[in-house]
C-alpha cells in the first residue's frame, strides 16, 4: 500500500520550542506535586502520571487551537495541560475541589476542559478513541477546519474500538489524528506480551498515513504532527502516529502497595532517564544558543510558582456540594 508520507523537515523555531519546553516543565512539576500528594495520602483515588511522555502531548497540541479537540486517557494530566488547561483547575480537580476543572466530580481520570477542546481524560481504556472520533465527525460536519486528536496507549491499541474507529475514519475521511503513546507497558505487562505485530501496521492496513517516531524527540513529533494535522484540516483524512516513549513513574502512584516484585528493571528505567524529553529539548536549545542556564532557572522558577499557586488555590477551595452534583447529571432536568 502506498500511503502519503508524514515525514517532513518542518521545524517550530526556537521561540516555539522554548514555549514547549516550559509546557513540558509545567506538566512535569505539576505531576510531581500530585504524585507527592498521592503518596502522602492527601489525594482521594488513584493518579497515573505521564512523566517522561510529555513531549508527545506538547508537540501535538502545539498545532491545535481551542477549537480543536483532544480525547485522552486515564493518564491525561499532560494532555490537559498541553491543550491549554490550567494547573489550577487540574490540581484543584485532582484534590476534589469545586474549583477544579470538573468541580471535583471527575477526578484525575476525568479531567476535562471543554472551553479548551479537551474533551476529557477517560477511565475506560479505549473510551477516548471513540469520543475523539465523534468529535472529528462533528468537526467534519461543521466544516470549519477543526481537527480532533485521540491519544491512547500501546495497551489501548488492542481494544477493538480502535480498529472500528480506524475503519470508519478512513472511510469517512475524518479529520482525526490517532496518537499511540507507546510506552512499552500496559499496566504491568510488557507490550510485546499483549500486542502481536507492530501496532502501526494495523493502521497501515486500513490505508492510513502512518509513522513510527521517537516520542521523546519533541521536534520529531512536532514535525510529523504538523503534516498529519494539516492533512486533516484540508479534508484529506486521518493519520496515525506511533510515538515510542516510556513512563518514568509507575503505572499508578499507589502500585508499590500491591506489587510483589518489580515488573521492569532499574536498568531499563535508568536507560530511559537518559532519554528524558525535557533535558533533551533543553540541551538542544542550548546547542541552538537559544537557551542559557539562567533561562532554564527562570523557566523552572516560573513553573514552580505556578504550581505552588495552583496548590494553594486547591487547598483554599471548597469541596463541591450536593447541589453541584444534582445539576450536573442532566441539562434542565433533575435526576
Amino acid at each position, binding site marked *: 500500500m502506498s500511503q502519503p508520507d508524514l515525514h517532513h523537515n518542518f521545524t517550530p523555531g526556537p521561540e516555539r520550542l522554548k514555549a514547549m519546553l516550559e509546557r513540558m516543565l509545567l506538566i512535569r512539576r505539576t505531576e510531581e506535586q500530585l504524585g507527592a500528594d498521592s503518596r502522602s495520602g492527601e489525594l482521594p483515588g488513584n493518579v497515573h502520571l505521564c512523566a517522561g511522555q510529555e513531549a508527545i502531548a506538547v508537540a501535538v497540541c502545539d498545532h491545535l487551537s481551542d477549537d480543536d479537540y483532544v480525547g485522552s486517557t486515564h493518564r491525561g494530566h499532560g494532555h490537559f495541560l498541553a491543550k491549554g488547561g490550567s494547573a489550577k483547575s487540574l490540581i484543584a480537580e485532582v484534590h476534589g475541589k469545586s474549583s477544579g476543572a470538573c468541580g471535583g466530580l471527575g477526578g484525575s481520570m476525568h479531567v*476535562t476542559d471543554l472551553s479548551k477542546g479537551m474533551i476529557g481524560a477517560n477511565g475506560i481504556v479505549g473510551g477516548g478513541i471513540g469520543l475523539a472520533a465523534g468529535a472529528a*465527525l462533528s468537526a467534519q460536519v461543521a466544516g470549519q477546519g477543526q481537527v480532533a486528536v485521540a491519544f491512547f496507549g500501546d495497551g489501548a491499541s488492542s481494544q477493538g474500538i480502535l480498529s472500528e474507529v480506524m475503519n470508519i475514519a478512513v472511510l469517512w475521511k475524518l479529520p482525526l489524528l490517532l496518537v499511540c503513546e507507546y510506552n512499552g507497558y500496559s499496566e504491568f505487562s510488557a507490550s510485546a506480551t499483549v500486542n502481536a505485530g507492530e501496532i502501526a501496521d494495523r493502521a497501515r492496513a486500513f490505508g492510513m498515513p502512518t509513522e513510527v517516531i521517537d516520542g521523546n524527540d519533541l521536534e520529531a513529533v512536532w514535525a510529523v504532527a504538523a503534516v498529519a494535522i494539516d492533512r486533516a484540516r484540508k479534508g484529506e483524512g486521518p493519520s496515525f502516529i506511533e510515538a515510542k516513549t516510556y513512563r518514568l513513574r509507575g503505572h499508578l502512584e499507589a502500585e508499590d502497595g500491591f506489587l510483589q516484585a518489580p515488573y521492569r528493571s532499574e536498568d531499563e528505567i535508568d536507560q530511559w532517564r537518559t532519554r528524558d524529553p525535557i533535558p533533551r529539548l533543553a540541551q538542544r536549545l542550548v546547542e541552538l544558543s537559544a537557551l542559557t542556564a539562567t533561562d532554564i532557572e527562570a523557566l523552572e522558577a516560573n513553573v514552580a510558582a505556578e504550581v505552588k499557586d495552583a496548590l494553594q488555590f486547591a487547598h483554599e477551595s471548597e469541596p463541591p456540594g450536593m447541589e453541584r452534583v444534582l445539576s450536573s*447529571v442532566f441539562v434542565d432536568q433533575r435526576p
Partner: protein
Amino acid sequence: MVKMRLTQAINAAYFEEMERNERIVLFGEDVEVSMFGDTRGLHAKFGSKRVRNTPISESAMTGMAVGAAMAGTPTICHLMFSNFALTGFDGIANQAAKLRLMTGGQARLPVTFVAAIGAGTSTGAQHSDTPYPMFMNLGGINIAVPATPADAKGLMKSALRGFNPTIFLLPRVRGATAGEVSEDPDFLVPYGKASVLQEGTDITIVAIGSCVNHAVRAAKALKEDGVSVELIDPRTLVPLDTDTIVASVRKTGRLVVADEARDRCSAASHIAAVVGDEAFSSLRAPIKRVTAPNIPMPYAPALERALLPDPEKIVAAAMLTMAG
C-alpha cells in the same frame, strides 16, 4: 392531524427536526435502506454529510455518537435492535450516562440512541430483548418508550431539541399500529409526564410499550366485568412520572404493572416498589406484575406467545387484585 404508523411518526420527527436544525446528523447500519422504515428517505433528502451508513461497529458507533454530541453536533445513533446496544454498551453505559457528571456539568450530550425492543416475531433470543430496565439503572440517560405514533413523534422531537442523552426504544410489534398525529411543527411530548389513557376508579394499570395495547384491550374486557380501570402509560421511564402513578393508586388502591421486560429488576418491579412505599396506606391488594419470565426468549412461536404479556394475563392479574 394525520393518521400514520409509529415508524412513520418517527420518520416525520426526524425530517422535521433535521430540517429545523441543520446540525443534526444520523448514522447507523443501513439507515439508507432502513429495514424498519423509520429512517427512510432521509439520505435522499439530507445527503451523505448528515445521514450515513456505518460499518457493523457498535462500540465505535456509540462512542462516536457521544463524542460528536459533546462537540456540539446533535447525533442520532441508530442501533437497529436493542440487543446490539449491549454489543456497543460502553459508549452508552460508561460514557453517555456518565460524562456530564464526570465533567462537572460541562458536557451537553444531545445524543439519541434508537433501537427496537421486544419479542413476538420469532427472531430468537438475541433479537428479542426488552432491556430498558438495564438502561434505567444507569442513572444518567433518558429513556423513551412510546406506545402510540403521536407519542413517538412528540418524544423524538423533544429528544432532538434537548441536550440530554436519550435512549429511544421502538416497541417492535407496535410499529404497524396507526394513530392520529399532530402536524404542528412544534408538537412536543415532554419527558417525565405520564399519559393517562383512561380514567377509572377501581384499579390502576400501568402499561409500558408493547403492553399499552394489551392493557387497552384488558381495560375493555374489565369494563364489561364492571371494573373501572385507570390506565397509565409512563411514556418515558427516565424520567419516570411516579407522581401520576402514585396519585392514581392513592385513588384506586390497586395496581397492575404490565411490562414486556424480564421480571427481575424490571420497570414493573421498580414501579411496584415505589408505589408500595409511597402509596402504602392506600393499597387494598398486592401489586401485581405482568412481565416476561426470567429467561431468554425462545424461538418457537407458541412459546413466545405463552411467555409474553397479553390482554388475558393483564385481566387475570387485575381480577386477582380486585379479589384481594
